[in-house]
């Protein structure tokens, strides 16, 4: 057993010293690459990913077929199609395992992100074009899918593609096993690798500040009665992540105004309601 869960009930501190509802340090940058249409870099604890968005642009030759277009997903005809590629670096985890392009787990993550984006982006504004999202995993320490979704959101915002709202994600787990029958056990927020291996967990992504769930992935066996608690904690974590990402975008925007690259607002949004 890599993680002795029994110690949790004594001090109520997790293996890395966090409380049950603490996020890890989230550090992110937006517009990291000059040549890209949109780019971002995101760290959630030791999970580090970067994202580059290209497009909306003319589809590359050979890309037209075989991609899951957004047409079916959004019910709109002829909208931009979305292509997601995830590359996991060989040095990203402890065991140096080579993962090919056809790795099932990676493919599932790609499809999850693609579906979430297709429902959220206003692709109908860009007919006959493709939006390509390239994600690179540099370091893995749990909550990988959540980090990928958050990095994608930032890069898409940087690319200036209209979207309904932020999609932010994080993971939630449950400390209690079925055998223990401990109903009062705390759900945990934002799991690291050790906790992910030990505990049942799910990844949840929500739309902006609302409670609307855009992504929900659960690969482990969880007792149904625990699910609600995990979901509540996860959704709450997503809101915390949204606030952090929103701060990063706004900080970047203010910096651009200060540099004179962007004009200021003509008027304040608040004054429009009168």
């Amino acid at each position, binding site marked *: 057993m890599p993680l002795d869960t029994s110690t949790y009930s004594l001090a109520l501190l997790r293996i890395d010293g966090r409380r049950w509802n603490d996020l890890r340090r989230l*550090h992110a940058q937006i517009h990291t690459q*000059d040549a890209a249409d949109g780019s971002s870099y995101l760290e959630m604890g030791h999970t580090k990913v970067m994202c580059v968005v290209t497009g909306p642009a003319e589809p590359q030759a050979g890309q037209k077929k075989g991609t899951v277009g957004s047409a079916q997903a959004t019910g709109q005809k002829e909208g931009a199609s979305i292509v997601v590629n995830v590359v996991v670096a060989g040095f990203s985890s402890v065991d140096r395992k080579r993962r090919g392009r056809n790795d099932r787990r990676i493919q599932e993550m790609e499809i999850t992100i693609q579906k979430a984006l297709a429902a959220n982006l206003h692709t109908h504004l860009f007919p006959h074009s493709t939006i390509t999202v390239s994600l690179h995993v540099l370091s893995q320490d749990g909550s990988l899918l959540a980090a990928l979704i958050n990095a994608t959101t930032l890069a898409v915002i*940087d*690319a*200036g593609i209209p979207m309904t709202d932020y999609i932010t994600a994080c993971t939630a787990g449950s400390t209690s096993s079925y055998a223990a029958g401990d109903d009062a056990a705390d759900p945990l927020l934002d799991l690291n690798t050790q906790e992910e291996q030990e505990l049942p967990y799910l990844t949840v992504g929500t739309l902006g500040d609302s409670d609307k769930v855009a992504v929900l992935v659960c690969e482990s066996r969880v007792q149904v009665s625990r699910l609600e608690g995990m979901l509540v904690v996860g959704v709450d974590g997503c809101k915390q992540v949204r606030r952090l990402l929103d701060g990063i975008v706004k*900080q970047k925007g203010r910096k651009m105004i200060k540099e004179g690259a*962007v004009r200021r607002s*003509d008027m*304040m949004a608040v004054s429009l309601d009168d």
Partner: protein
Amino acid sequence: MLDDESVAQDEDDEDEEQGDARDEILTPGTVITSNSQWMRGHGTYVPLNTSSITSSLAGTLTRTNKLLSVRPLRARYNPEIGDLVVGRIVEVQAKRWRVDVAAAQLAILQISAINLPGGILRKRTETDELQIRSFFAEGDLLVAEVQQLHQDGAASLHTRSLKYGKLRNGVFVAVAGTGGGAGVVRSKRQLWTMEAANGGGKIDVLLGVNGYIWISKHIESDAAAEAAGINRMEESVSSQIYSSQNNHIDVTTMREIARCRSVILALVENGVKVDEDTVTRGYNEAVEFGRESMEDDIYLGGERGQRLAAALAGR
């Protein structure tokens, strides 16, 4: 260390926000107004079952009478009729070319929208269609104007003016992120000639609205053609305008063209917008920088670029 910095910056920014709320940045999902007297423009949407105008981009608010729109911080080029663009031929088809203009879709240039050698009265024949590659082939660069926009947002170009056509004698620079950020902004003049330093002669700078830039040696237009007057000017169009052969360019001119390119890249790297004013002033600064050392370094990356941007900001 990074964290401390960003925290300190946050506090700074909060102080400023109190100073001027117009520095506010709208982000996706921010409700702009729920008052029904306003109309929604670009960069906004109205969520289902509500009547509140909501932002769909990160950017700043613009108001045109009753129309509210969000100007994005950065976005890809969106063609508009009348834009001067620099493009690259990607595909040659039977009667038209497909041109990369950094937009969401490739632009279209019809063979009927170019000046054919031999004058305006010449009839377009099948021979022209058969030798379509002799005018523009794949990879050729050209300057054109957006003539019309199609239903799906694709642009049609035309080069029916002596100002437009194939580009030669220069260097291409692509700048990402138009419409905001460090990119080319629409201005009164996108094309100008400037006197190069160090005896480099004259150089033309052409800032395509789409963020594609062409810097070239200035070629004096043919005096005989000018004398012929506007009506006959197009008749004097010779096959020379579709030549892909460069004129002779002095090494000094090449250096000044390269310096101008470095200036534009340095402006972009340091988040300064690219227009006639910033490029000419930046170029003059760069010439001064070059005189500081013997080897006259035209590279303007890193610290030197920051110095250039600071000099421009300080005026």
